[in-house]
């Protein structure tokens, strides 16, 4: 693996990788901001809305940039070619990215309904669900970073 770290990539791979990593960092930042605002709001509707908006305006675009970058770099490296077996770390990364994206979408839909209910003064249960899903996603993406950076065989 040390050899892998020391290997210099072809420069044509650098920009897609940059896009992928930047998107992933924005995604994780949006999730942390969202979870922090939702978790520490203590029922304050302004902070609950702020938490939801962090997920919608920061985490979701971050996920999109990360996923587009992932596909781009995977194709550059030839992992999308027919008959090429993909390594386990890449399978883990793609699985967590896609399942994570689905969970993010569900959390945004649930949270969106939660924000509407909040305006009507009907409790914060759905936004607490969004918080729980955000925390699960943060954990999942820590595993994804481990897989992408450590590249376990």
């Amino acid at each position, binding site marked *: *693996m*040390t*050899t892998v*770290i*020391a290997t*210099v990539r072809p*420069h044509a791979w*650098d920009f897609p*990788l*940059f896009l992928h*990593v*930047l998107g*992933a*960092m*924005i995604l*994780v*930042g*949006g*999730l*942390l*901001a969202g979870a*922090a*605002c939702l978790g*520490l709001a203590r029922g*304050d509707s*302004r*902070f609950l809305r*702020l938490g939801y908006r*962090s997920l919608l305006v*920061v985490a979701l675009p971050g996920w999109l940039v990360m996923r587009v970058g992932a596909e781009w770099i995977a194709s550059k490296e030839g992992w999308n070619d027919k008959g090429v077996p993909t390594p386990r770390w890449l399978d883990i990364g793609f699985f967590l990215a896609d399942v994570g994206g689905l969970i993010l979408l569900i959390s945004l839909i649930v949270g969106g309904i939660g924000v509407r209910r909040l305006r009507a003064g009907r409790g914060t249960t759905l936004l607490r669900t969004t918080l729980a899903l955000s925390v699960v996603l943060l954990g999942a993406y*820590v595993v994804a*970073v*481990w897989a*992408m*950076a*450590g*590249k*376990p065989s």
Partner: protein
Amino acid sequence: MSFVDWALVVHVLSAFAYVAGLVVFWVLVVAVRRTDTPAETLRMEPIVKVGGVAVGVGAVGTIVVGIYLAFAVGNYAIWDGWIIAALVLWAISGALGQRTGAAYMQGMNKAKELDAAGKTGPDEGLLALNRTQAGLILHSLTSLAVLLILLDMIFKPGA
């Protein structure tokens, strides 16, 4: 996975924590611009702490493990141009980040003073401090420095 592999994982996770902390602060920078009461300003303090912990852990983790990796990984040396550039940018981002924190703490301190004096209503002076232009510029520059570190780490100019 070898020890060096694990070190790389910690290095990258630290970088994620650093950027995630900066994103938390961006969310707060935007939110605080419409905050003119002491109570609402003070409600942001726990979230500031989350951002602060993420930035702190990220900054220490990236530099300590990064320097270790520069010595441990063959082909790389601590005096490589791109590694020196990263170290300089890391120091710049840290210094700018500290000044950003100081700029925004003026609003937090003012909110504490108003709260202690029993003034709970909207306050023009507090709003002006919360909308600090200096803080906004400093946070933008901190983010730019970290973005340049990421570019440097991936493109490795000269390597």
